[in-house]
């Protein structure tokens, strides 16, 4: 009887339906993902903020705050720049002596007509560059005058420097020019290095982003991950920014950023090795190349620049 029932049951079910072997659930495979091959996901990565204190300038004789360097540059630069422009070309100051000389000459001319400008320059020399000034005028003034200037107070030194300049001694003018040239021909920023800590998101989220993008040596043809972003700056510079993350293929060169504007950081494809490095902690080095400086536009100290980086994934996020 049992056999009969079994046969009846099997025959019943066999009769009532047909099997679709294509749907054999024992062969079920695949992954769980958010999105499909057409999907595009954006994910924030980091925002780096740069205050004026972040930047330094190494003149060879020591490291200075970039705020000090440019506040001093404002004194050295003539109020009216040659050719009627409102900026100085910082790179050109380094490599084009004629351009530098024209600016220095314009400063001297302004000092001759503006006692206020001249006094600022004299005071700057007396406070920061007296030794260099003495070195320039040595041999042109008596030893007693040299010794007196060397030991003079700032106020006294300003008075002496002013009198020598107003006496129209060529050596005194040249001394001012020499110091000015030395200060204006290198207004560069040192590279900025920031430590990016290990990113505190859960491993399953990290794995979801990395997904199947593949390593640099064996990248996926379909799933791709890009890093991109944008920069903004309130600093009075036209600037070129070249950020890179050490030990990864994340490197961008010469992203041009005009004063008060924003700029996009172009996309760069990255790989699982890069992302793992990023997520586990890394070092970002940013090279700032100053193209133009807009003197007197804003107070540098109060300004900030930002680099925002995000990821763009083409393809699904595998859970």
């Amino acid at each position, binding site marked *: *009887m049992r056999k009969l*029932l079994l046969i*009846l*049951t099997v025959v*019943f079910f066999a*009769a*009532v*339906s*047909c*099997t*679709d*072997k*294509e*749907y*054999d*659930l*024992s*062969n*079920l*495979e*695949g*992954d*769980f*993902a*958010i*999105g*499909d*091959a*057409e*999907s*595009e*996901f*954006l*994910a*924030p*990565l*980091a*925002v780096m*903020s*740069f*205050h004026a*204190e*972040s930047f330094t300038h190494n003149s060879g004789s020591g490291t200075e705050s970039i705020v000090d360097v440019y506040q001093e540059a404002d004194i050295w630069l003539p109020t009216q720049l040659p050719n009627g422009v409102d900026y100085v070309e910082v790179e050109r100051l380094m490599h084009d002596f004629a351009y530098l000389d024209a600016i220095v000459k314009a400063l001297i001319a302004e000092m001759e007509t503006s006692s206020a400008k001249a006094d600022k320059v004299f005071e700057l020399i007396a406070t920061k560059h007296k030794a260099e000034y003495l070195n320039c005028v040595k041999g042109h003034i008596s030893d007693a005058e040299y010794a007196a200037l060397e030991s003079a107070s700032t106020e006294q030194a300003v008075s002496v420097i002013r009198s020598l300049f107003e006496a129209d001694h060529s050596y005194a003018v040249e001394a001012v020019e020499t110091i000015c040239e030395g200060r204006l021909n290198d207004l560069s920023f040192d590279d900025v290095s*920031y*430590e*990016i*800590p290990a*990113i*505190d*998101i*859960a491993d399953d*989220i990290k*794995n979801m982003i990395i*997904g*199947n993008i593949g390593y640099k040596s064996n990248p996926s043809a379909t799933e791709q991950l890009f890093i991109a972003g944008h920069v903004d700056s309130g600093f009075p510079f036209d600037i070129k920014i070249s950020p890179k993350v050490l030990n990864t293929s994340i490197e961008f060169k010469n992203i041009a950023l005009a004063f008060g504007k924003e700029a996009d950081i172009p996309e760069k494809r990255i790989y699982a090795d890069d992302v793992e490095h990023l997520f586990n902690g890394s070092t*970002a080095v940013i090279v700032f190349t100053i193209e133009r400086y807009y003197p007197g536009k804003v107070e540098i100290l109060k300004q900030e620049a930002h680099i*925002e980086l*995000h990821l763009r994934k083409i*393809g699904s996020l595998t*859970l």
Partner: protein
Amino acid sequence: MKKLLLTIASAALMVTAVAQNPTTYFMEGSTLRSQWNPAFAPYRGYVNIPVIGGIQVGTEGNISLSSIVIPHDGKLTTIFDGSVSRSIALDKLNPENYLGVDTRMNILGFGAYTKNGKSFWSFDLGLRLAADVNLPYSLFEFMKTGNSTTIEDLQARAEAYAEAAFAWSWQVKPKWHLGIRGKVLLGVGRLNANIENADIHMAGDMWKMSALGNVSVSGLQLGQDGSTYTFNDISFGGLGGFGVGVDVGVTYDVLPQLQLSASVTDLGAMFWFKNKTQIASMEESIMFDGVKIDEHGAKQPHFDLEDFELNAEENKGETNMLRTAINIGGEYSFLQRRISLGLFYSVKFWETKVRHNLVFAANFRPLYWLHVSGSLSLIDNRGTAVGLALNFCPNKGINFFVGTDVLLSKVTPQFIPVNQSRMNVTFGIGVPIGKVGTRYPKVGKKQ
């Protein structure tokens, strides 16, 4: 994570595979027919074979296996596979996608006619497991597009209980039979989970996810970590509650060949004990907007989906209504009852949905002890199912019945319908004993 999700998907598919089969409504000799309407009675008394005396497994819903599982690129995969395009994946889904499971297993059952041969009593002890989920389209849409969205009303409900029932069917007047079944229910376990609202925002400046929901569990013991519950160490917590229910039904023989029937089943409620119920709420939000770095160091938000925790709330008892159903049928017999045609309508009230079912049935009784029923079901004006049932009910030996409504449909090798969103399988073996009832004219004899 992948393994967990595949397991859940597989479980959902199995659920799809595996309740009351409407084809059996007109199968008058079967012992489980009285579960449709307690006024019905079999031909003869019976004792069911324990456990296999009556098994009913079924699902109802509006998503089929082929809505979720598809052959793609030479492999069988789910629509959640990253290689499956959104257009293919979302093609067969509905604005609301729901699936309900109702499984009954008869542990012990017996019944007999009284001396007059007209009244019938029966006792059944069984297990019932019922579950349903509601999956909004926005959930699937998010899964396939990744677009920021708000998902609302993601619900899951399940309950299991043991049922001890005593039924009595009697003739109140000529042509009229009434039936009533009283049930005492012992709650084994219950889960009610509801995500009222989940906001997902994924953009280049910020990833933000927030969820508002609640979970209530009875009879099961969730793992507890301080003031939060987890599903990690779930265990059976003992008897979770009790309930009472009643089925009432009536049949009326309008003509010797025409019988009308109506019933209300599962009218009642479960009361889950306060000390066996855990209630939790979830109102969390996590956000990641990138690492903030400046010359003073770095600050970063913590972003982990495990931060969505179930915060323990004060326990309280819960009451929920049973899944009440209303069943109405009419059957006309001819050729000395060798053939009959039936029309059956049922409406079932789920926690999340109301389901309608209209069935046309043709019943063949070539022999007194052999019945075959075929049916065509119209489900919620949406789909159809063709069913077939076989009843083997001799006066001696065994009583055996089997029925399904996956007739003519494609099934997987695991016997899961591929394109049909509803499936019922009924199966049972019993031993006929005692007196033969007098309420059914013998097949083949003039009425």
